[in-house]
């Protein structure tokens, strides 16, 4: 359903879309039944000349079952949804699979800064690559991210990943994703962050291993050239 509007580009996008499907089926059924009964009753029991309404208290046992049976069924549906929701949640947000690579995501009014590992493949070293409003990741690798904010709340949202996480100043929040599809997609800020909130977009560029390596090489070449000029 969602995948027809937004492509799935992460390993857990399918899980979340599946959960949405399940909920749609269960609540859709209830919704249609309830609407159907409502309109049927309004039609069936419309006022007719000389016909008096029935006197039903709804407190007798055989009357109550019309409420208590749906009640139990709703409860059952709830339990199914709870179980599936928690399963997806634990997978996406609570457990962290082993990382192949790491990125730092720094949000501020109103821009995103991304820190990628440089040619040495490690984050937090001299040769890290910093970009603004452009996140480069390699398809198929599991990434851990550290999300921080420099000023107010922001939210790192990648619709194609079905991933969203608020950034809170003072906190480091970690999470993970594994891109599964190459392409260039939107990154949004999904938490009100001031006047420029509407402009705080970025792009995620998911590349094949070769393309990613080429980008890293090109960027670090540029970086070296720049620092070389700065420190003759």
């Amino acid at each position: 359903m969602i995948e027809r509007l937004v492509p799935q580009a992460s390993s857990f996008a399918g899980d979340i879309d599946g959960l949405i499907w399940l909920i749609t089926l269960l609540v859709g059924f209830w919704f249609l039944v309830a609407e159907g009964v409502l309109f049927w009753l309004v039609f069936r029991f419309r006022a007719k000349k000389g016909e008096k309404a029935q006197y039903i208290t709804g407190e007798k046992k055989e009357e109550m079952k019309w409420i208590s049976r749906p009640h139990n069924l709703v409860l059952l549906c709830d339990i199914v949804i709870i179980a599936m929701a928690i399963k997806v949640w634990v997978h996406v947000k609570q457990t962290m699979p082993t990382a192949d690579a790491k990125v730092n995501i720094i949000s501020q009014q109103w821009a995103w800064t991304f820190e990628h590992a440089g040619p040495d493949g490690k984050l937090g070293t001299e040769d890290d690559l910093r970009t603004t409003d452009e996140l480069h990741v390699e398809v198929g690798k599991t990434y851990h991210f550290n999300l921080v904010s420099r000023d107010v709340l922001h939210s790192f949202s990648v619709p194609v990943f079905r991933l969203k996480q608020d950034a809170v100043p003072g906190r480091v929040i970690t999470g993970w994703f594994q891109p599964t599809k190459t392409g260039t997609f939107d990154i949004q800020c999904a938490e009100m962050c001031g006047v420029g909130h509407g402009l705080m977009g970025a792009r995620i560029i998911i590349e094949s291993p070769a393309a990613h390596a080429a980008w890293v090489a090109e960027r670090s070449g540029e970086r070296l050239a720049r620092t070389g000029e700065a420190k003759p």
Partner: protein
Amino acid sequence: MSDAHAHHDEGWVKKYLWSTDHKIIGMQYLFTGMLMALLGGYFAYAFRMQLGFPNQPVPGFGLVSPNEYNALVTNHGTIMIFWVAMPVLIAAFGNFLIPLMIGCDDMVFPRLNRLSYQIFLVSALVLLASFFVPGGGFGGAWTAYPPLSSQAKFSLTPAGSTLWLLAVALEFVAFLIGGINFVTTVMNSRAPGMKWHDIPVVIWMIVIASIVFMASVGPLVAGAVMLLMDQQFGTGFYDPIRGGDPILWQHLFWFFGHPEVYVVLLPAMGIVIEVIAVFSRKKVFAYKMVLYTAFATGILSFFVWAHHQFVAGIDPRMANVFTVTTLLISVPIAEMLFVTIATLYGGSIRLDTPMLWAVAFVAEFLLGGVTGIYLGSSGSDIYFHDTYFVLAHFHYTFVPIAIIAVFAGITYWYPKMFGRMLDERLGKLHFWLTVIAFNFIFIPLFITGAAGDHRRIYDYTKFPDLARPELQNLRALATVATVVMLSAQVIFLYNFFKSMRSGKRAEANPWQANTLEWLAPSPPPHGNFAELPTVHRGPYEYSVPGRDLDYWPQSDPPEDDAAPDAAPEAAR
């Protein structure tokens, strides 16, 4: 108001502005709420136009700048919840109905009641003032998350955010005072013979809502004091750099914010159940079950707040707890709707305007209810959080609550309020235009939300994935529908004010209803009843077998010989 009661010597100011009469105070709340609704609707018009037709001057507003856009969405939300839904559903209907429906002459503390309205009025004026200060109105969303709301260097609205906060805090004070008055009145001043189970559902709902409000707003009052100190006195309660915690505000806010949904939902449900019983000539199906579900909802509503914060940086383990509680609250709410629908069974349904609104409430609210499941279950909320899907969901709850149910209430009690009938034809026209346009606003927004539209963005052209023409067409459709829905309200206003002068005169009980307010003349004079009534039976004894009339007012003395074999519950 009717001329028949103009013989009082009091001046106009004393009678209408300085009155302690619960009916006048109810009207004050109603008219203030209606004015604020017009303002909130105007705001919606301005920002919807910007979204539907980006960066073109909006007729009647001009070009919408980003900070104006933020102030518009923030204050649209704040106004519609705190200055429309609350005053109309709780204060206006509560004030007007409670003394009439429980059969007494006024609220227990009439002067406190007047004070409550005056504080409310001041709060509305403070909010209005906040739009005109340097920097403009507050634009940090109605949730006012710090540090954006607490530090002017981030929000760029140094005065606007403080005035906004003050206005909200004053509004809370007004409703605390009003709520205490409501609860005390219902507990103590019921007509002789009116036992707990003879109280009409709508009164129960207003009382439960008032108690839920009272119990949930406390932490936020404390939180608002702390936020005010952060804004103006240099404290760092929510400043992480100085040992504070922005997440604390989120908890304080939503501990109130979620019960608040039920604070307005319950009175709306009460109005709808009242109308459905009268217009289907049926006893409310399982009256006690309605009360139990209302209690259960009220209590459970305190346990669910953090589902607004699943991805806000709270500990992910807590999300599991709140998913369970959130989905469980669907059980009493679903049951309340089932009971409402079941009441229709076997009825003799007349589709007058109030009934149309009441049925529409159930039909529309169902969609709002079921879409809540997507957001309450943590796994799918990761995607839907802060998208237009959320927005469409809560508009499918709040519009039925604050608009549809309110229209059901106004059209139903209008004869009692003003002594005249509304025009049915205009009423039905207004109904169909409003309800159809409403669906054309928010169904498209469900779709754009599912496609990834995130909230509070003034221009989607900056997001390549969202700037697709098919999404933009949906946004434009929603905007056009908004304009239609807002225009339809002109019909209502015309009908409302014209009928006040020239509508058909209403008798005391035009709908042939049972509850006590219909015993009083229309409109009721000061003191309400010629002789304070005594209650002999429950409020929903419609179509009792063995009686010629299909209704049986609560105050009618029992006819021992007239209906010897009536159902025992009925003849108690």
